[in-house]
C-alpha cells in the first residue's frame, strides 16, 4: 500500500491552471523523484502536498489512507509530512542549534529528539562544529544540510525535498545526494525528491515521474527513465 498517495491534484493560481490533475504515489521506504523543467509544476506539487496551497474539492492527498487535502500546513506537519523548501530557507537570525530545535516544534518525545539530534550531527558533522553559529552566516551547502537536518528533527514519515542541489557547487551537490541516499538506507526515510538535476536524482531514486506544464507525462523505474530517449533529450542534455 502506498504511504503517500496523490490523486487528481489540481492547483489554480487565480486564472492560471498550474497543476492539471497529477497522480503519483510514494511507497514506504522509497525515494521517488519528480523531475521537470522550469515552471513545470514541481514546486507547486510539493507546496500543495504540505498544505501551503489550497486545492479544489476533487483533489485527493492521502497519507496512509488518511486524508490530508484540506488540512492547514501546521496540521500536515503534525501528520509527519515535512517539507524542505526550495532555496534553503533557514532561520538566518537563529543559531544552527536553534534552527534544529525549531524543527522539533511539533514533537512531544524529548528522548527521541536527543537521539535524532545525535543522528543529524553524525550525518552532518559540519553542523555540529557550527552549532552555535548564526545560520545566515553558513555557506550554501551548510545551509542546505541545516534545512534537511531541521526537517529530520520533526521525525518525518515522508520527507519532501525541493531542489536540494539548487545553486550549489557540483562537488557539494554530490555530497548532498550521497547524504539523501544514506538517510534513506540507514533510517528507511521515505523521500519525495523534486529536482532539476534529473540525472543525479534518477541515480538515487527507485522510481521517477516526469512533469511538464502541469501534467505527468512519463513515469516508471528510475533506471528505465534515465535511459529513455525522450527524457534524455529533454532533461539530460542528449
Amino acid at each position, binding site marked *: 500500500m502506498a504511504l503517500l498517495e496523490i490523486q487528481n491534484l489540481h492547483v489554480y493560481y487565480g486564472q492560471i491552471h498550474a497543476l492539471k490533475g497529477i497522480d503519483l504515489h510514494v511507497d514506504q521506504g522509497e525515494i521517488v523523484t519528480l523531475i521537470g523543467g522550469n515552471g513545470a509544476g514541481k514546486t507547486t506539487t510539493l507546496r500543495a502536498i504540505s*498544505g501551503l496551497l489550497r486545492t479544489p474539492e476533487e483533489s485527493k492527498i492521502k497519507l496512509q489512507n488518511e486524508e490530508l487535502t484540506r488540512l492547514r*500546513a501546521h496540521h500536515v506537519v*503534525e501528520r509527519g509530512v515535512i517539507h524542505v523548501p526550495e532555496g534553503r530557507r533557514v532561520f538566518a537570525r537563529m543559531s544552527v542549534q536553534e534552527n534544529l530545535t525549531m524543527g522539533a516544534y511539533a514533537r512531544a518525545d524529548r528522548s527521541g529528539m536527543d537521539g535524532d539530534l545525535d543522528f543529524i550531527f553524525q550525518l*552532518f558533522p559540519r553542523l555540529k562544529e557550527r552549532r552555535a553559529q*548564526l545560520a545566515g*552566516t553558513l555557506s550554501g551547502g551548510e545551509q542546505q544540510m541545516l534545512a534537511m537536518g531541521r526537517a529530520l528533527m*520533526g521525525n518525518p514519515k515522508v520527507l519532501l525535498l525541493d531542489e536540494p542541489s539548487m545553486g550549489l557547487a557540483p562537488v557539494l551537490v554530490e*555530497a548532498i545526494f*550521497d547524504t539523501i541516499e544514506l538517510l534513506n538506507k*540507514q533510517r528507511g526515510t521515505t523521500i519525495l525528491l523534486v529536482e532539476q538535476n534529473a540525472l543525479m536524482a534518477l541515480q538515487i531514486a527507485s522510481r521517477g515521474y516526469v512533469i511538464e506544464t502541469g501534467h505527468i507525462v512519463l513515469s516508471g523505474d528510475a533506471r528505465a527513465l534515465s535511459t529513455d530517449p525522450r527524457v534524455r533529450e529533454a532533461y539530460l542534455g542528449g
Partner: protein
Amino acid sequence: MKSDRPFTLVDAAKLGLYGGISAILISLVGMTAAFAKTAIIADLLTMAQVLIYGLAFMVGFVVVGRAARGSRGLALPAGALASAVTMLSLSLLALLIGAVNLRTIFTNATAELANLILPGETSGLAGALLLTGAGAAVGLVAWLLTFVPTRIRNGLFGGIAAVVLFGLMQDVLVPILPKSVDDFLFESKGLTWVGAVVVFVLFFILSYLYAMRSQVRISRLDKLPPQQRQIARFAFTLVALIILTLLPRILGPFLSEVANQVGFYIIMALGLNVVVGFAGMLDLGYVAFYAIGAYTMAVLTTPELPIMREILPQLTFWEALPFAVGAALLAGILLGIPVLKTRGDYLAIITLGFGEIIRLLVLSDALKPFLGGAQGITGVGRPKIDDFTATNPQQFYYLILVAIVVAWFITSRLKSSRLGRSWMAIREDEDVAAAMSINLVGYKLLAFATGATLAGLSGALFASKLGSMVPASFNVLVSINVLAVLIVGGMGSLPGAVVGAIVLIGLPELLREFNEFRWWVYGAVLVFMMLNKPEGLWPEATRVRELHEAEAEHTHVDDDASPTAPATA
C-alpha cells in the same frame, strides 16, 4: 570613504563645505537666531555659538582622523582647512545677507542673523575673515586633541556636554535643586562661569572614571558564579525599584508629568514590540488601539454624554479599566482576522487605514452624542481608592509605573516562551515556520491581540490622567512615534523600548529650546541612528550577534566548497 585613495586637501575642503552647508541650513531655518537667546554660560556663550563652533569642530575632528590615516603631516593643514571652509561658507552667507535681500525666500535671513553669525562687534569683510580664522583655530584644536589620550579626551567631551546640557536644562533643573546650589550654579539666564567650571570638572572626572571602570565591572559580573550573579541582579532590580518609587518626589510636578508621558509610550512600545519586534508584522495603525482604550475609559466613566448614560451605567475608573483593555483586545482580534492573510507592506497599509478610520469615527458628527465628536469628552473618571483620588502627575506616576512593570513582565515572559520562539520563526520566514508546524494565523493573531491590549491599557490610563480628551490626540503620528521609539531603542528588545521612549519622548520635553525644531532634530536623529547604529541603542543580543558576526564571517561565506562527506556509521 573607505577607498584606498589617499586623503587630500581637496577632500578636506569638500567635507568642510558639507559642514558649511549644514551650518547655513541651520541658520536659515532659524535655529541660530532662536538659540542666540539661549545662554549656556551667562554673557559668555550662547547655544547658537555651541551649535556653530561645535559643527566646525566636528568637521575638523573627522577630517583630522581621516587625514592622519594617510600621513600625519597632512592632519593639521587638512583639519584647519576643513573647519575654516565650514566657517567661510557661513560668513559668505552673512555677507550675502548684507548685500542682497534674501528675506523674500528665507524669512530668517535677516540682518540680525548676519550680526549673530559674525563674531563680536565686527561686520562685513573683516568679520568674515575673523570667523574664517576662528574656524582654522577650531581645526587646530581638533588636531591637538588627537594627541590627548582617549580617556582624557572622553572626559573633556563629557565635561563639555554636561555644561551644555546644564545650560539648556536650566528651567528644569532649578526647581529640583536646592536653592543654594541654584544660586551658585545659575544666573537669571545661563550658568555662572564658576558654575560652568565646577560642572565641567565634575563631569570630566565622572566620565574619566566611567571610561576606566566600565570594562572592569562588566568582566567582574561575568566572572561571578551564577548564584551570586543572580543575587547581584536581584539587588540591582531592588535598587532600581526603590529609585523609581522615590522618583516623583525628587522630580517635582513638571518632570513627573514628562515621566508619565514617557510611561505611556513605554507601555505602547512594549506592546508594539510584540507585534513588530517579535512577530515581524509592521503595524502602522497602532494608535487605533490606544484610542479605543482611551475612548472606552472615557465613555464609561464620564458623567456627560446623556445618551450613553441612558444605555450604560456610569462606572468608576477601576470598573471601567478591564472593559477598556478588553475592548482593545477585542478590536485587535477583529482587525487581526481579516488582515493577517496579508504580509509586509500590505499589512502596513491596511493597519494605517484602520488607524485613520478609528480617528475619523471618533471625530465624526454622526457619533457625536456617543463619542463627543471634535470637542472630545471631559470629566473622565480618576482612579480612586477609598477616599484618595489620584489627580496630579506625581500620583498618577505610580499607576503608570505599575502598568509598565506588568507590561514588562508579560512581554518578557512571552519572549522566552515557546510562543516567543514561534513568533521569531514567523518573523524570519512564514513558509518555513508553517513547515515546522507553527499555526500561522493563530500565533499572528495572538501577537496582534497582545499588542492591542497593551495599547488599550496605555490609552485608558492616558484618558484618565488627562481627565478630558480630543480626537486630535490620536493621529497617525502616535503610531509613527511608537515605531520610531522601537527603532531607536532596538527592535525586539525590552530595555530598548524603555531607552527609546526616554530619548525620543522624554528628551524633547526637557529640551524645550528645541521644541520649535523638534521634528527637524527628530529626523536628523533617526537618519543618524539608521546609518551608524541600525541595531538601536540597547539592542537584542541576537541583533548584535547578527550585525557584527555577519561582518566578521562575511569573508568566508560561500567560499568553502570543500566536500562534506557524509559520515559512515
